[in-house]
């Protein structure tokens, strides 16, 4: 079965990186995966998104009719992607930027996360998308926590070893918040 998630927000929020972390974790868990960015003349502060499709069989279509989950980090992303989530799906809303705004749908699970504050708890308030990934994994369990940890060490460690701990901290904070959100 294929599951899809879109990570969307501003360029610079780490969305493409976070999607790749999920993709590498999926490979480590023996799954098939496809990562596709929105590409184009985009820049820091502009919009950025990527889609990750995870499955047990080789991934078919690189475009999906509906997403199983959406991580929306800013207002344009909320407006664009929340309506594209399948009924019964999950919308993770970055309440640090969006305040009380939500997707206004009763047929999906909406998880509101103060990503900036949670990322700060982990050690670096910029790692907002990694927080959201933690909540996503806690809620949906597509990949194992260990594989995300390993992917974060591999990817963050390669370029900026000094931020690995903060990445792991942000992921753990998101994981915990997601688990609480699920129980509630």
């Amino acid at each position, binding site marked *: 079965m294929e599951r899809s998630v879109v990570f969307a927000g501003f360029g610079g929020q780490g969305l493409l990186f976070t999607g790749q972390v999920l993709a590498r974790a999926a490979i480590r*868990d*023996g799954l098939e995966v496809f*990562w596709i960015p929105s590409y184009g003349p985009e820049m820091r502060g502009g919009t950025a998104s990527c889609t990750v499709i995870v499955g047990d069989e080789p991934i078919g*279509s690189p*475009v*999906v009719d509906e997403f199983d989950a959406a991580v929306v980090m800013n207002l344009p992303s909320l407006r664009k992607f929340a309506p594209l989530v399948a009924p019964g799906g999950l919308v993770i809303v970055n309440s640090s930027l969006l305040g009380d705004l939500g997707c206004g749908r009763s047929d999906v699970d909406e998880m509101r996360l103060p990503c900036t504050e949670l990322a700060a708890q982990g050690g670096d308030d910029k790692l907002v998308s990694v927080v959201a990934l933690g909540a996503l994994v806690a809620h949906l369990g597509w990949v194992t926590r260990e594989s995300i940890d390993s992917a974060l060490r591999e990817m963050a460690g390669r370029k900026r070893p000094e931020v690995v701990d903060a990445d792991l901290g942000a992921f753990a904070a998101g994981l915990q918040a997601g688990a609480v959100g699920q129980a509630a």
Partner: protein
Amino acid sequence: METGRRARVLMKGNEAIAEAAIQAGCDAYFGYPITPQAELLEWMARRMPELGRVFVQAESELGAINMALGAAATGARVMVSSSSPGISLMAEAMSYMAGSGTPVVLVNVMRAGPGLGGIGPSQSDYFQATKGHGHGDYRVPVLAPDSIGEAMDLMATAFELAERYRTPVMLVADGILGQAMEPVELRFRTPERQAFDWALTGAAGRPARIIKSIDLDPEVLERRNLALQHKYREIARHETRWEGWRLGDAEFAIVAYGTAARVARSAIARARDNGMKVGLFRPITLWPFPERELARMSRQLHGILTVELSSGQMIEDVRLAVEGRCPVAFHGRMGGLVPTPDEVLGALKALRGRVERTRAASGHSPAAHDRGTPSTNGAGLDAGARPGGRG
């Protein structure tokens, strides 16, 4: 877990294609940046000098392709890459390569046209790749992978074909295959080096060799053309590639290549869940087109849906192969958009509905399996099932 499986790594399409070319023994790369293939050039810019090989970012696409022509004339393993508008600029040199028999591999990561168009994924260069580019009676083998792993395999094939037949060879991807990341096995193939008796390696101690496309004597030029056509028949006989998926019991088939074939697979899985017997016929070589194989397949089919990221270009080759044995419908998107599986499923259902109505009207049982019976209503069905057809 990874047991019983080769280690897989996540690679971006453009970078995987570049690395596969390097591992296939590419000696020299010439290019000019353009979205959505820029990462291919960037990878080459970093890796080729590391290996002591040639990388040139030329002053333009014309510069790049003509440098490639010159380098290939020396027997080097040579590659260029670009995206649609850049390939148009390279068209003249491709004709010269075909005429002079210089083996060069070209990669086109297609974007939407015409003109500068946009940067979204597209397959609107099918005509250009299979029938077009430069002037003159020539053909170019065209390879069309539908995954990053297959693109890597086909890069080695591209160099093999280029050298075996002394011809330019094109590999076509699209913006999605170029920009996406997928798990791939780092399994590379390096085609064996052949001893070329034509390469310009310095004539000391041997008769001079000449590589040219000009022959002002019509008799001589016709003989050369006849030799070229013989070569193209050999390529068609030995190098046609395609893949079938779930065709065994199929009553309908989607014909699609590259990214469109992946969308088709998802649509076929859904159609099967709905009880429709559908399979996929995927050309891997766009030229030579697998016409004989598709013709044979069409005898068992009630209808064919061609899916492309274009207004419908390959469909002309599909129709030529099918020769009216069953209706051929079309679904496609343009401008950088990609049809979704549900869209394709809708087109499949529409095709089935039309086939059933036509058969009912002409006294056929819709369930009957009319093997080998040509449909006389194909043309009418075509037009109807073609949203926004070529205007």
